[in-house]
């Protein structure tokens, strides 16, 4: 650790110099070196570091060891990024961020938490050489119960979902532009299966999972709500406790809905009628075969239909003036064509939601401070513990459960769920949160959704709501350099300085923000 601590300032100074040479606008905040945050943390102090990697999560939490207060204990929470619909989500900084993390920790990680298997949470583990040729030491690895391959049911479910996503991806890869919302669907699927976009540097979800499960010398623990979390002894000694709030235990109803989903999109998967096999991801070069249900001799033109057949599509005066060249059958055709391709979007969304809801939600308590890491949990995951429901419930009471009120009412830190999307931080949760905590949102604007249709991520009103209660900092508001020494611009409307939290300080680094508490 001492070695790492020595190494660390050097790398940062270097980065800072580069920034200075390339941009005329230096970071508004004092650098970490300048304000002396490099000094080891005091006993009872902790630091949460959010790296700016783009649309993805990569957090490092650090506390001093109990035995030797100058020795730091580190927890990595997720490491991934994805390009999203626009392709702008991956800003190409993850390798540098991981290098920084290894320099900081010396590769000695007390705990790695993988919240769920989306690319924007795990791709870094296979993309970055520091992990692939890992020379450090890992104390423990936590994963959601959905990664437990020893459970045949879960394993089958995950394999099916992966096969479904891969096959859909393969079918759509070439045709994305011909299908409505094709790019969005493709981006969701890409995030699920972890096929890295060209030019951004390798890795795959499968390789990351393999590394985390078998390549780091420690067997992962699989948790769901209520599981007793087993922290490594060093962390326990240091005074850290952890509680698992999500995901809900896997139950039958959650299994069922996906198994049938595959059948719903069968036509996109395999036109040879052989969707029973496993993966048919053939590199995205398979074109959909058109199946003609009848002989060609049955083919006629719309003019062969009686005029009465299209009476429903006649121009209606209340629609406004009739456009010249209005043809009834064309309107019918358009309506039928437009009604169709919902299948893909539905399937991709379901896979996306399933994976997000598998997120491990962890509440750390350290020195009386409560720190909530919510992964990408969405409504189904949240409400399970928000409302003390024994299962996902259809009739929640409007009153939060005791545990939820207690946790949210005394929060010191919140990792904003799912990069700031509305689905991932319920209103009830925001309302129950006390004022004065620090919220960190690792995101990249203009990656998914759009402001125009109120589906932007991060969702502006949600972020505003959270910001009104907390000192909120977004990763895309940190100026950062890529490996090619280019400055990645900050998000539109970035405030000139970091907010001042009620407790502790926020400090900007070359590719991260630290919260010292």
């Amino acid at each position, binding site marked *: 650790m001492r070695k790492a601590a020595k190494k660390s300032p050097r790398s940062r100074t270097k980065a800072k110099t580069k920034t200075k040479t390339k941009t005329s606008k230096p970071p508004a905040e004092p650098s970490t070196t300048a304000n002396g945050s490099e000094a080891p943390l005091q006993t009872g102090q902790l630091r949460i570091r959010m790296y700016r990697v783009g649309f993805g999560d990569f957090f490092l939490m650090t506390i001093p060891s109990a035995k030797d207060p100058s020795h730091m204990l580190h927890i990595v929470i997720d490491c991934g990024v994805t390009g999203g619909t626009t392709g702008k989500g991956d800003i190409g900084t993850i390798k540098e961020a991981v290098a920084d993390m290894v320099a900081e920790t010396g590769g000695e990680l007390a705990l790695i938490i993988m919240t769920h298997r989306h690319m924007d949470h795990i791709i870094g583990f296979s993309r970055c050489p520091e992990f692939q040729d890992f020379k450090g030491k890992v104390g423990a690895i936590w994963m959601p119960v959905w990664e437990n391959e020893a459970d045949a049911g879960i394993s089958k479910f995950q394999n099916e979902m992966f096969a479904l996503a891969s096959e859909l991806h393969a079918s759509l890869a070439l045709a994305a532009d011909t299908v409505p919302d094709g790019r969005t669907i493709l981006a969701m699927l890409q995030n699920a299966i972890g096929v890295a976009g060209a030019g951004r540097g390798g890795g795959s979800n499968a390789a990351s999972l393999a590394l985390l499960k078998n390549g780091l010398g420690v067997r992962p623990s699989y948790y769901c709500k209520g599981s007793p979390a087993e922290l490594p002894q060093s962390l326990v000694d240091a005074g850290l406790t952890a509680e698992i709030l999500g995901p809900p235990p896997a*139950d039958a*109803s959650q299994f069922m*809905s*996906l198994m*049938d*989903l*595959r*059948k*719903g*999109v*069968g*036509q996109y998967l395999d036109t*040879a*009628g*052989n969707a*029973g096999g496993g993966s048919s991801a053939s590199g995205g070069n398979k074109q959909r075969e058109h*199946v*003609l*249900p*009848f*002989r060609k001799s*049955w*083919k*006629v033109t719309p003019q*062969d*239909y*009686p005029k*009465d*057949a299209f*009476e*429903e599509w006649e121009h*209606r*005066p*209340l629609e406004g003036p009739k456009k010249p060249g209005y043809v009834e059958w064309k309107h*019918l055709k358009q*309506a*039928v064509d437009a009604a*169709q391709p*919902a*299948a893909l*979007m*539905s*399937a991709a969304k379901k896979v996306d939601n399933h994976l997000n809801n598998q997120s491990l939600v962890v509440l750390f308590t350290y020195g009386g401070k409560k720190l909530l890491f919510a992964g990408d949990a969405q*409504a189904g995951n949240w409400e399970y513990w928000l409302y003390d429901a024994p*299962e996902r*419930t*259809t009739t929640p009471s409007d009153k939060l459960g005791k545990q939820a009120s207690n946790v949210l009412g005394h929060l010191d830190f919140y990792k904003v769920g799912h990069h700031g*999307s*509305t*689905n991932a931080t*319920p*209103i009830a949760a925001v*309302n129950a949160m006390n004022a004065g905590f620090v919220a960190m949102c690792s995101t990249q604007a203009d990656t998914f959704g759009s402001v*125009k*249709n*109120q589906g932007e991520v991060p*969702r*502006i*009103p949600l972020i505003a*709501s959270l910001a009104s209660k907390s000192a909120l900092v977004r990763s895309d508001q940190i100026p950062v350099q890529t490996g090619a020494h280019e400055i990645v611009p900050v998000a539109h409307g970035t405030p000139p300085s970091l907010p001042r939290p009620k407790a502790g300080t926020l400090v900007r680094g070359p590719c991260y923000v630290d919260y010292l508490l």
Partner: protein
Amino acid sequence: MNSNGDSRSILIPNIHLQYGSVLGFPPSAAVQGESPFYRGTVLVLRKPLSLLTTVSTMKGKTEMAAKNSAVNQRGTKTKPSNRKASHGSSDKLETPVTRPLKAYAFDPSRGKVLGNEMYLKVRYQKLAPGPVVLDRRYDSIAVVDYDGENNVWYKPVNLDDWHILMSGGLDPSESDPRFHQQMVYAVVTETIQHFETALGRRINWRRAERDGPKPRRGKYPDDIYTLNLYPHAMYSPNAFYSPKARGILFGYFKAVVNDPSLSRNLPGQIVYTCLSHDIIVHETTHAVIDGMRKFFTEQTNFDVPAFHEGLADIVALFRHFAHKEVLLDTIQRTGGALYKYQLRPDAATSPDDWYAPDPGSKEAEREGPTITAEMSMRNPLVELAQQFGEASGRNRGLRSALGTKPNSSDIRKFTEPHHRGSILVAAIFDAFFSIYLRSTADLFRIYRSGGGRLDGGDLPDALANRLAGEAARIAERFFQVCVRAIDYCSPVDITFGDYLRAIVTAEYDLRPTDEVGVRDAFMQAFRLRGIVPESASFFSESAIAWPRPDPPLPPVPGLDFGDPNGLTNAQKDQNGDALRAYANNPKNRKLLGFDRNLYVTVPSFHPMFRINPDGSLRTDMVVELTQKREALFDKKRASLGSFRFRGGVTLIISKPLAGDVARLSTDIPPDERPTRAGNNAQEYPPAEIRYAISKHLHGTEGKCREERQRHYGEQMGLMESSDPDRFQINFAMVHEGEGV
């Protein structure tokens, strides 16, 4: 009534006829209705339909329908026929009442056995190739065979082609698209007829929302008047009702067969959803319900989409019990226990029947069927869409009538519309089988007391026939109850609990004496599945039924109930104005529990003509009244978006008797009572409201509902969009994964 008379025609003795010359009377004489009786002529008179163009000039007059109606189907006048014609000797033939068409009773995978290739006698309608219904006096249907996958239009069938007429419709064939068109037309028409019989009125398709005190007249862009049916719209194991495509899209797909022994499809064969009787009925039901209650496709809680799916399955499953041959076969193979999943095979297996087994070998231990006849089959009556289910790799039907075992936790867990809907389906069929067993218990008792056994032997034909008759009759009654109950639901935000209350109320309203305990069977079956009404105070029949307004609500003046032939535009306008005025009267608005600051709209009003148990005709009107306001997802932050929060009241209004019959009660001295002869009031008294079934916007109930809807929107990710259509159920998406 003469030989051509239709049993539904009404004999009216005291009328003026304008067609005296037709009957051979002097044209100048205004002929009294009684006169023909003296002259020895019996008239059967048929009232013209209200929307017939030329009929508007004939309002209040009658038309002779026995022979040569003065107005033909297309509304053009024909010459009055001569006297000879009126005596039934014309060479012109009467318009047929029904048109026979062939269809699959289930789907092609069942082959020809047990009446799977059946005749449907659907009502005769004049058709253009498609088939396209040309009679537009009511909402109609049109089959348009456009294939969006291949951008191809298939040749439309002309059902009036004499080749087809001669054979009673095209023979079933998977390779001829014209048969597919015929089957879709026939099954949809039959389903519509069933709904109309149960509801006591003609159905209509979805209408757009008409807001404000004076909604614009005319066809709105989102109205549906002709439901389009697309038998091969897409390459997809899916079929769905799409209001935007103004119709039903049926898909076709290649079968997935993992194990040929478990599926009657060839691997890769094309399966057509439009050839599944169940799927057609299911999708038609969606369209019919959407026409009856347009806000039931607006997602406000988990029960709303599930109700749509559940009811569509219920309607499809009850149709199974109309197929007598299958019913008789199933009765024989289950010993009358129709709810069993497996049917007894033709031949029993025996463990010692094994060809030359080597002693001690594993083969010697093998038991089970050797030939097909020894294999047990699944009960087709309780399974939905067998071919579709098998072809999509399920190795069974798509869904089942009794898919879930009774428990009270599923209702809190299941959120997917089909899974949740299956709880409703199971509850209804639980009640159905209870009543079936209760109604046939005496038959079984008689059979057993005569030495009959139910353990595997054949039942006597007479008993099987009686059982089949009972099952079919009860199925029809249950179907009617389930459909009529929709009229007794509030216009918005339906829940399963509301539906139970509606069922009990509808049953009570129409059949106050419940000899076999139908209402109790429903209540117990729902209770076992954790479905309990939110607002009822006790779980007793009288508490579950919606309460009658107490004190009675003020009667509604100025309503015109019309008659079974429909309302004219003028009558519709009059009723719309009367209802809007009534509902927006501040006093009534308060009594009905509406918000006093919001305008009350009238989305629909329908006169209903139903038959009482004593055979008399009963006329009611069902009216929807609604209010709406925008509610914020987050009360403190408008920027997080809003949703439409609606309240509404369903009124069931009885048609009053002409003249004030109440005055005939015994407390009026006999000499002051009006005589019957004097009972010729100029207009009907105001109509009494029998039921006002409400969902309020305010108060505790309103707050709870708003909170529930907010939470639902959040759970379903409906906050993240500005698309106003996102609250509408998208059946294409809902059906994704489930198929239909």
